[in-house]
Each structure stands twice: as structure tokens, then as C-alpha cells.
């Protein structure tokens, strides 16, 4: 990935071997081989992930934390083993800091409702940036409505970067919480998160980082970053949907009230008084997504086996190639040209709406996302209703870039 995310010298990725781990890539679409360039929306699942889920469901499933019988213990061991796997993957200090949630969206909502809402008052400020996904905008707007706090936005520039001085100038004594993406889903921009965290902390604010687009592509060390909260979605990192992680510093999580009530999050219940369970169970009401957690742990094993540096280096090569190829096409404009980018290319073709581009590309088996990418303020900033977005994962190849370019030439022909 980019300079502020570690990228060490590493042997190249054996992409053909990787592709054999993703059977869906053999799919034919309208008679063409599938060219999957939509991993930023949702990645595909690796066979080891699918096998781990099947193994768990076939041989180890029961409810967790509830029984003395063998299967319940096996399920608990699998679930808690997954939690430890996640802890190591992001280098959290303790498994008490790893809360399983449905995904990044739920993680952000949890912090909004259980951290921000009980504490914030009129006059307090929440700072976000101009490139956020709706999931990192709307939960804060809801908290502002509920508490009277106000939302401030550090703007982006025409390259899709958040200028650091603009960010700094919006921090102040009233800033209570700062929330930003590690990597922009719509533009690919990699934010200088460590500097941003340090600046926010210098003003006494707590920091949440939306890591949905970062974790599949780079080493994330939550302690090195200094993050107070960090959120992850499984399905963007080759794991199933419906599972994700909220990391929170133990001291903060311990001081927060529960978010949802139910089973597993209590120690004792009577009609007069209920006492809450300890971390992390306090934030995991109800039977969790056990097989999802198992799949997420398997995906983390898989990524580490490939070598996340090798994956990052591979994706950067594809990004450079695709950026150069698209620049040679007439009438294509790249939206998002930050100095530090992940392998995401948002673009428009002159005179052709993104939705039409998406259909024409799909007719040749090329899957891209079209629309506002759940980042309507970004589209408004660039004066666009929509863009097409090609995003790359560990299984993409130079041939995929060629197929994209060829399909774009065809689109130009249709709308000549």
C-alpha cells in the first residue's frame, strides 16, 4: 500500500496459485471469463475460509458460553480462538478489546451510541472528513441530533486528499471525537492516520478509524497507530458477510454502558436489577455469528500465509498499471489521484453515465461498481452523480487490467 503503511521487500505473490483458492473466479459471465474488479464492495471468499466455516458447522457447532457439553465447549473454543486470532492480526493488547460485530457499520454505530451519546452535549464537536463512507457520517449525525453536539468536516482537495492543515484547523478544544477512514472506499486515498491520531489526541479527542478498506491490503497495528477505536469488516478481507470487529481500548470500552441488552452480556438478571458481564461479552448480546468469526480467523490466517506485504506489493503494481492504462484512454477521467492510494480507481468516461459503463463492462464479464459508492458528499464535491470504480484484490492480474481497458474501448464505441 502506501508509504505510511509498512511495505517491506517481499517475494512476489504467486497469483495463479491464489486464483485457484477462489473457485468463483472460474465463473463465466455472459460467455466471458469473470473479471472481478469489485473487491472494495465485497471480496470473494478463499477456499480455506469456506472450508473452515464448513468444518465448524459440520463438526463443532453449538451455542457458545452456555453449556458444559462437548460441542458447546468446542464452539466456544472456536469462537474465542477466533477472537485471539483477530487480536494478533491487529496487535491489540487484549482479547477484551475485540468486540465481534456485523461489520464496520455496526462497529461505528456501537461507538456512536455507547461512547458518544451518553457523554456529548451541546457545544461538543465531532470531526470527520469529506471523503467518508455514509457509515462514518450518518451515525454521527444521529448522535448530534440526540445530544446537540455538532458535526464538523475537514474538506478534501481535488486529488481526493484531506490536506493536513485543513484537518488541523478544525480541531479545537470542543472536539470530543474524530472519526475518519484509513482508506477511502470511493477514491482509494490512504489517509495519514498516525499523524491525524496524534493531532486529535493533542486536542484531547478520542479517535475512531474506519478500517474497512485498509485491513485487506496492509498491516494494521492498532497500538502503533494509537487508535482508540478501529473497525473491520470481514467480507472485504475474504471472509464471510455479517462478521466484523470493533477494536476499542480496554479503558474506554470498560467505561461505556452496554449497547444492546440480552443474553451473554449479563452476569445476573433479576426483575429488580441486572449486572452486566465483563468485556468483551458486555457488547455481544445474543448468540453471535460464530461461523462468521471462524471464517474471519481463517481469512486472517490465509492473508498472513500469502504475506500481506506481498499482497500489498502486488496490488500496488496493478494500481500503477491500471492508472497508466486508463490515462492513455481518451475521455477517461480518474477521480481520486492522491499521492498515496490503495488499488481503487474511480473514473468517468466523457458523455457516458457510469451506470451505462457498468452495463457495457458487465456484458464482457468485467464487474465494476457504479454509483455513488455510499459516499454521496464525495460525488457532490466532484460535481458528479456517479463514477465507475474498479478495485483490486489479491487475486487480480494484469490480464484483468487488459480486460477492463478493452471493455472501456467497447463502451467508447457504443457511445461514439
Amino acid at each position, binding site marked *: 500500500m502506501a508509504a505510511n503503511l509498512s511495505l517491506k521487500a517481499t517475494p512476489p505473490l504467486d497469483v495463479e496459485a491464489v486464483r485457484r483458492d477462489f473457485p468463483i473466479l472460474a465463473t463465466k459471465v455472459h460467455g466471458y471469463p469473470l473479471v472481478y474488479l469489485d473487491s472494495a464492495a465485497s471480496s470473494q471468499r478463499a477456499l480455506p475460509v469456506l472450508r473452515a466455516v464448513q468444518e465448524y458447522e459440520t463438526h463443532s457447532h453449538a451455542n457458545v458460553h452456555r453449556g458444559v457439553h462437548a460441542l458447546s465447549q468446542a464452539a466456544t473454543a472456536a469462537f474465542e480462538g477466533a477472537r485471539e486470532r483477530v487480536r494478533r492480526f491487529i496487535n491489540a493488547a487484549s482479547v477484551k478489546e475485540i468486540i465481534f460485530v456485523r461489520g464496520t457499520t455496526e462497529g461505528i454505530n456501537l461507538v456512536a451510541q455507547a461512547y458518544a451519546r451518553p457523554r456529548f452535549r451541546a457545544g461538543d464537536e465531532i470531526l470527520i472528513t469529506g471523503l467518508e463512507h455514509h457509515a462514518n457520517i450518518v451515525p454521527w449525525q444521529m448522535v448530534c441530533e440526540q445530544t446537540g453536539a455538532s458535526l464538523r468536516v475537514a474538506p478534501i482537495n481535488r486529488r481526493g486528499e484531506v490536506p493536513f492543515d485543513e484537518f488541523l484547523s478544525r480541531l479545537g478544544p470542543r472536539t470530543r471525537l474524530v472519526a475518519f477512514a484509513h482508506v477511502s472506499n470511493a477514491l482509494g486515498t490512504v489517509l495519514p492516520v498516525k499523524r491525524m491520531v496524534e493531532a486529535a489526541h493533542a486536542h484531547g479527542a478520542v479517535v475512531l478509524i474506519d478500517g474497512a478498506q485498509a485491513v485487506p491490503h496492509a498491516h494494521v497495528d492498532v497500538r502503533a497507530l494509537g487508535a482508540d477505536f478501529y473497525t473491520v469488516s470481514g467480507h472485504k478481507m475474504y471472509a464471510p458477510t455479517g462478521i466484523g470487529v470493533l477494536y476499542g481500548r480496554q479503558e474506554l470500552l470498560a467505561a461505556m454502558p452496554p449497547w444492546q441488552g440480552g443474553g451473554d452480556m449479563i452476569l445476573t438478571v433479576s426483575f429488580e436489577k441486572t449486572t452486566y458481564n465483563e468485556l468483551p461479552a458486555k457488547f455481544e448480546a445474543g448468540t453471535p455469528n460464530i461461523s462468521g468469526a471462524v471464517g474471519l480467523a481463517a481469512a486472517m490466517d490465509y492473508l498472513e500465509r500469502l504475506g500481506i506485504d506481498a499482497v500489498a506489493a502486488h496490488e500496488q503494481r496493478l494500481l500503477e498499471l491500471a492508472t497508466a492504462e486508463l490515462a492513455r484512454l481518451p475521455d477517461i477521467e480518474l477521480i481520486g489521484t492522491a499521492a498515496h492510494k490503495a488499488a481503487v480507481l474511480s473514473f468517468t468516461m466523457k458523455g457516458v453515465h457510469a*451506470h*451505462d459503463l457498468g452495463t457495457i463492462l458487465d456484458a464482457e464479464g468485467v464487474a465494476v461498481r457504479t454509483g455513488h459508492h455510499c459516499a454521496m458528499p464525495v460525488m457532490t464535491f466532484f460535481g458528479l452523480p456517479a463514477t465507475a470504480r474498479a478495485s483490486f484484490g489479491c487475486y487480480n492480474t494484469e490480464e484483468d487490467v487488459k480486460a477492463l481497458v478493452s471493455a472501456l474501448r467497447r463502451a467508447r464505441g*457504443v457511445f461514439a
Partner: protein
Amino acid sequence: MDLKELYRDVILDHNRHPRNFGPLEGANHQAEGNNPLCGDRLILTVRLNGERIEDIRFEGRGCAISTASASLMTEAVKGRDRASARQLFDKMHALLTQPDGAPDPSLGKLAALSGVREFPARVKCASLCWHTLNAALASEQAATVSTE
């Protein structure tokens, strides 16, 4: 998948040169249509004289299918009365959603949109303007729209 079925010449022409595009002076009915999936936005302005659609124009941004569909629709309903426009809505709905069969001959140029049937993700693009027209014509009391 035959892209030529979707992007017929009539559609490409109406996308490039949309008819009845821009605000309508003296409009008394208006509705806005949004397709949140793709960010398409359409504003229809209509001047109804009694039951008759005396004039109709549209504004907004959308894909080729939604732009051409709106352009073709304004041509097709101008001069019709409300009941006749609603009949046309029903015929378009059938054209866009029913699997096969020859288009109703009374649809005229609108039949060019029949290729959309093969592209289920695009049916909403073609039907957005028609739903917006229904909304614009629905209010019995003519809402006066200031165009100043």
C-alpha cells in the same frame, strides 16, 4: 447479452439530444424522481389544462436509458389527457417487465426500450420517468409551481 438491443439508435439519439429538456414556464404540476442506487435525479414539470397535458418538460441527470426514456415519454404524452397517459404507463410497465411478446403497436417509438427487459438491473432506469409522471399527475389539485 446484446448491447445493441439495449442501446438502439433511437435511445442513443435521445440521450445525446434529449427532447423537451429544461424548465417549463407556467407549469402547474411537478414531481421529482430519484433512483438512489445510481444517483439519477429527474424533475418533471407539466402544464395541465383541464385533463389535457398541454406541455411537459424534464430536467436532471441520469444514464442513457433514463434520459432517453424521459425524452421519449415527454414526446409521447404531450397532448394526451391524463387517462390516456396512464394507459400508456400501463403499457410501458408491461413492456419493461414482461418477459417477451411483441411490443404493443400503439407504443410507437417507445417500443425502442423493449431491450431493457434483458437487463433487469436497468428496468428502474427506464421506468423512473414514468413513475415520476404518475406522481406529477396524481394530485387532483393543481399545484402552482413558480418558475420565476
